């Protein structure tokens, strides 16, 4: 039997019960004993006899004990509430304890409880008031805030309340403010609360906590606390340890209050008043100086509390520095002080600061440097942590970098993973161009044995550093590939996407990248992420290394395909795309690849994506000519420069550590941002496929000889296709996909738009507006009407429809613009798209015989009515294909009209509200010269010119 404290009243029954529980040999025995007790208490509470206060208290206490053992308690609340109105302190106390621990804020009993608290809070006995205040603070619910939000502040500034009541009231109010900040009026009692800082010492810690929170919520009202806080701090740091008696903790005067005051000061800018500012600098210097003094005690409590104050002082120094001000060290500020009336201009102060040496920041850094090798693990941990912050300041960054070796050593030798994690953070923060190779190499070496918990984060950090400080891209490529080798499982999509993105954008990296991935793939076991990177890069740039017979096309293909069966479907899908790219790059291995594509393993694969890719790719490779293939499968155009997605990911993981050091982390680039609307990289695999889905094979064959080649990029190409088709994906990025489906009849058109939200979050303030470029507002060429406005929000993953009706009034060129605006995670986005409404959509074909055609042809013989162009055919001349293209364009292709069967003639009428414009077309190929002559005649000369230029 343990010694039960002799003080207070011991509840024997409770002690016996606790002993019983402790004597239980098994979990079952314990449950049995508890159930027996619960049944006993239940019957007592339900019994006819009214229980006296003592019994109630004892049973409530037993229930509490059972609850704390981890069992659920569903009765006894009423009895506990009854105890609150007992006039015996001890019963009241237990009642309040039970309620604080066990009553949830939405309890039915809350009204009763609040009533009891109201009685106690206005009691003349301070102990009762304190119990009530503790209970309010412990529950801290919204109801409590509403019920006592006005009451508690009164106690705080009351002339009669005792110090102990006041300190409870201060923290109680603090809790209520945290729960319901809007319910409080701050300004009203601001000045009285601020002046609590002048009050006697004993309850200041609590008051300062309150003022700190109030200052964060309403800084303006509490600005006055700064000078009071500085003078209070100054009194503490200059006092000897005997001055403050009870509040001196292991020879350190009032560490809790000091830290609170230092934190309070971090809510505000540096005081403007020179005297206050000078005093603050003096305080900070004193704190720094004290750390150099020999310790007054060998106890760890002494050094801990002294250093707690020091670290908080360093935080304040960093805070002041982050405001762009450097504190002038003591010898200087005295002089400044004297001259201030005349010379207090910001230039002057800054001028002095440049002269000043060493400033507080550097001193702080040196102090932390000492801690880096301290025998206390705690101090090493904290020094690494604080140095991370100092590394972000331009004044201390260099001082931090001096400790590089120590930090690297910490990474290698620290036994504690938490400390190693801090070392990684600091290395990351101090990395620059001069030390990046060493730091990245050390991090890579450590990654091999790093704890699983921090590997992913480390991978992100290595990836970011190697990109940010890459002086040449071979080093960058090597680093990322090594990263995949060492920690493939922790390499997230963002990382391997990024390396591909960079290789594609950098011509100088491509050949090396192809060579290196090829070498890496030759390892007997290589990570799936390596296969992905390898597949993609060889698909794009395999030709750059194909000259060497050790990496000939077939060798490359066989190497990749040997991994195929070991990979997950998503990687296999990527490899299939690589294969079709190979067919284009290396026509000589086409049969081998076609065999693979047409293998039943692919064609009948259970995975729909693989099946579709295999089918479409094998069709594409067998139906199309080499030229078509070359166009469709041309190298991916460069990606727009944007913030690295890796960085975004790291920010998500660790918001604080990134902000410090990533200013200006973009790769150097020669690219402009003209492709800003292109799909982002993360959707690359699917958009790659999308290119094929978009194109109906028939159309593909037709327009292929007029496809714009080279630099126009995907968007130009995609839009071009809409000349021949009426539906497809108009636009896609990481956030949104816009699909379109149009119908046209005579001069009327109906455009259905489908907006798909690809994110998980709601897109807000969505708006879609149609405008026709270069149009005269009084005389529009197209009338636009919407049936109803598009919804203003699109839920995550949802698709909404929006219909637009159009009427073509007169001839127009170009296309109307669709302007989309929306907000994603409160960042406004804007996209301008071209609607696929082109003049040829309003054209209908007219069938006519040879006689009619030529008689009309001659009628339109004036020079203004004809436009003729002669141009090079970019692809082999194929009359059949051209004929189909013409039909897709909207004209009727006429047969047996032209005496030369190679020539192609067509006719159509553009229908607008105001006029109907007849158009006739004649296309004469010259196979020997590979030239076309295109002649268009129309009743309106502009139309002829327009159609001619569109078809060219």
């Amino acid at each position, binding site marked *: 039997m*343990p010694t*039960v*404290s002799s*003080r*207070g*009243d*011991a*509840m*024997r*029954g409770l*002690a*016996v019960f*606790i002993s019983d529980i*402790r004597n239980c040999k098994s979990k079952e025995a314990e449950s049995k004993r508890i159930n027996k007790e619960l049944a006993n208490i239940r019957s007592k509470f339900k019994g006819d006899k009214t229980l006296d206060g*003592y019994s109630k208290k*004892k049973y409530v206490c037993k229930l*509490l*004990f059972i609850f*704390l053992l981890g069992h659920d308690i569903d009765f006894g609340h009423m009895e506990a509430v009854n105890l609150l109105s007992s006039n*015996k*302190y*001890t019963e009241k*106390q237990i009642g309040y*304890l039970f309620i604080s*621990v066990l009553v949830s*804020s939405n309890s039915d009993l809350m009204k009763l409880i609040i009533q009891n608290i109201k009685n106690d809070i206005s009691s003349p006995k301070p*102990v009762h008031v304190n119990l009530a205040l503790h209970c309010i*603070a412990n529950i*801290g619910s919204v109801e409590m805030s509403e019920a006592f939000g006005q009451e508690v502040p009164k106690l705080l500034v009351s002339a009669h309340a005792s110090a*102990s009541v006041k300190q*409870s009231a201060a*923290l*109680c109010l*603090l*809790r209520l403010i*945290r*729960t319901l900040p809007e319910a409080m009026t701050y300004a009203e009692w601001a000045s009285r609360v601020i002046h609590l800082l002048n009050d006697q010492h004993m309850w200041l*810690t*609590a008051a300062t906590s309150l003022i700190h929170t109030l200052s964060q919520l309403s800084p303006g009202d509490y600005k006055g606390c700064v000078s009071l806080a500085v003078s209070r701090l100054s009194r503490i740091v200059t006092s000897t340890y005997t001055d403050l008696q*009870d*509040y001196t*903790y292991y020879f350190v005067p*009032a560490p*809790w*209050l000091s*830290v609170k005051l230092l934190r309070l000061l971090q809510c505000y800018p540096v005081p403007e008043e020179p005297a206050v500012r000078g005093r603050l600098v003096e305080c900070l210097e004193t704190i720094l100086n004290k750390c150099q003094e020999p310790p007054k005690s060998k106890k760890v409590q002494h050094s*801990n*509390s002294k*250093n*707690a104050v020091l*670290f908080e002082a360093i935080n304040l120094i960093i805070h002041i520095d982050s405001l762009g001000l450097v504190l002038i060290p003591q010898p200087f500020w005295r002089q400044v002080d004297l001259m201030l009336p005349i010379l207090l201009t910001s230039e002057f102060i800054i001028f002095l600061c440049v002269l000043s040496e060493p400033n507080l920041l550097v001193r702080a850094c040196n102090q932390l440097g000492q801690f880096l090798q301290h025998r206390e*693990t*705690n101090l090493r*941990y*904290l020094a690494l942590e604080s140095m991370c912050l100092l590394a972000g300041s331009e004044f201390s960054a260099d001082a931090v970098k001096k400790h590089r070796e120590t930090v690297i050593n910490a990474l290698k030798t620290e*036994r*504690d993973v*938490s*400390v190693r*994690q801090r070392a990684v953070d600091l290395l990351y923060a101090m990395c620059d161009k001069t030390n990046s190779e060493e730091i990245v190499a050390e991090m890579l070496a450590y990654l091999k044995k790093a704890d699983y918990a921090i590997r992913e984060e480390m991978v992100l950090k290595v990836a970011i550093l190697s990109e940010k400080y890459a002086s040449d891209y071979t080093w960058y490529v090597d680093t990322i590939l090594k990263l995949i080798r060492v920690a493939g499982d922790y390499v997230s999509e963002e990382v391997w996407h990024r390396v591909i993105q960079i290789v594609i954008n950098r011509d100088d990296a491509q050949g090396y990248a192809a060579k290196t991935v090829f070498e890496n793939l030759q390892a007997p076991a290589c990570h799936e992420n390596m296969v992905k990177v390898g597949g993609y890069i060889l698909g794009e740039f395999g030709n750059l290394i194909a000259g060497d017979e050790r990496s000939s096309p077939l060798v490359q293909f066989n190497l990749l395909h040997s991994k195929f069966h070991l990979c997950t479907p998503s990687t296999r899908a990527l490899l299939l795309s690589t294969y079709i790219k190979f067919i284009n790059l290396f026509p000589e291995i086409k049969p081998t690849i076609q065999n693979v594509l047409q293998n039943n393993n692919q064609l009948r694969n259970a995975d729909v994506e693989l099946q579709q890719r295999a089918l479409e790719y094998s069709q594409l490779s067998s139906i199309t000519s080499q030229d078509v293939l070359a166009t469709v499968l041309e190298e991916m155009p460069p990606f727009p420069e944007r913030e690295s997605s890796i960085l975004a990911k790291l920010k998500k993981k660790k918001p604080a550590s990134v902000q410090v050091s990533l200013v200006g982390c973009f790769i150097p680039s020669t690219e402009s941002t003209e492709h800003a609307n292109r799909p982002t990289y993360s959707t690359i695999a699917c958009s790659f496929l999308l290119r094929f889905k978009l194109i109906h094979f028939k159309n593909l064959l037709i327009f292929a000889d007029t496809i714009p080649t080279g630099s126009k990029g995907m968007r130009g190409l995609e839009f071009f296709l809409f000349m021949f088709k009426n539906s497809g994906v108009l636009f896609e990025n990481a956030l949104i996909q816009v699909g379109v489906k149009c119908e046209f009849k005579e001069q009327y058109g109906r455009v259905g738009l489908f907006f798909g939200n690809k994110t998980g979050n709601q897109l807000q303030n969505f708006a879609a507006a149609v405008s026709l470029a270069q149009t005269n507002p009084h005389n529009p060429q197209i009338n636009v009407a919407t049936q109803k406005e598009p919804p203003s929000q699109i839920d995550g993953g949802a698709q909404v429809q929006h219909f637009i009706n159009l009427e073509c009034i007169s001839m127009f060129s170009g296309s109307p613009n669709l302007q989309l605006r929306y907000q994603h995670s409160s960042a406004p986005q804007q996209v301008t798209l071209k609607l696929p409404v082109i003049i040829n959509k309003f054209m209908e074909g007219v069938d006519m015989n040879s006689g009619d055609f030529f008689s009309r042809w001659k009628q339109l013989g004036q020079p203004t009515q004809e436009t003729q162009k002669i141009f090079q055919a970019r692809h082999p001349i194929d009359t059949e294909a051209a004929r189909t293209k013409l039909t897709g364009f909207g004209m009727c292709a006429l047969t047996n009209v032209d005496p030369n069967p190679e020539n192609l003639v067509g006719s159509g009428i553009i229908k607008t509200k105001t006029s109907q414009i007849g158009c006739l077309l004649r296309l004469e190929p010259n196979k020997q010269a590979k030239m076309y002559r295109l002649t268009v005649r129309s009743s309106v000369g502009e139309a002829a010119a327009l159609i001619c230029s569109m078809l060219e």
Partner: protein
Amino acid sequence: MMKFMLLFSRQGKVRLQKWFNAIGDKERKKIIRELVSMVLSRRPKMCNFLDWKDYKVVYKRYASLFFCCAIEESDNELLALECIHRFVEILDKYFGSVCELDIIFNFEKAYFILDEFLLAGEIQESSKNKVLRAVENSDSLQEENQEAEATRSILEEFGLS
């Protein structure tokens, strides 16, 4: 601000838990489970601080008991460590060389002491003597009624009341 404080034994049995913000019961149990196993798995001489989820965890072992608290990102770790130590000192003075059993058998007293020391997750009174005086003051109020109750309680335990 301190978010919560836990006292648990080397066997992982929770002896005291104090939550300073509103967290659901289920979530509390989950936090206790994860945190206890994490702290217990750490070796001596490792540092007393841990980054855990959105909290900084500060813990220290005293004999068979672990004292563990969670503070906010911007809080001062060393001072939290000394909060724990001051709490232990107060318990020690009150119980006279405190041991785990004192806290088990007098758990309600441990709660009362903690309420005088910390409130709303902030230090209420950092002076050891003042906290002890406040607790003793309320104890003296109990003693007034003690004698009559003590006799009654013995009778009751034997079913004689």
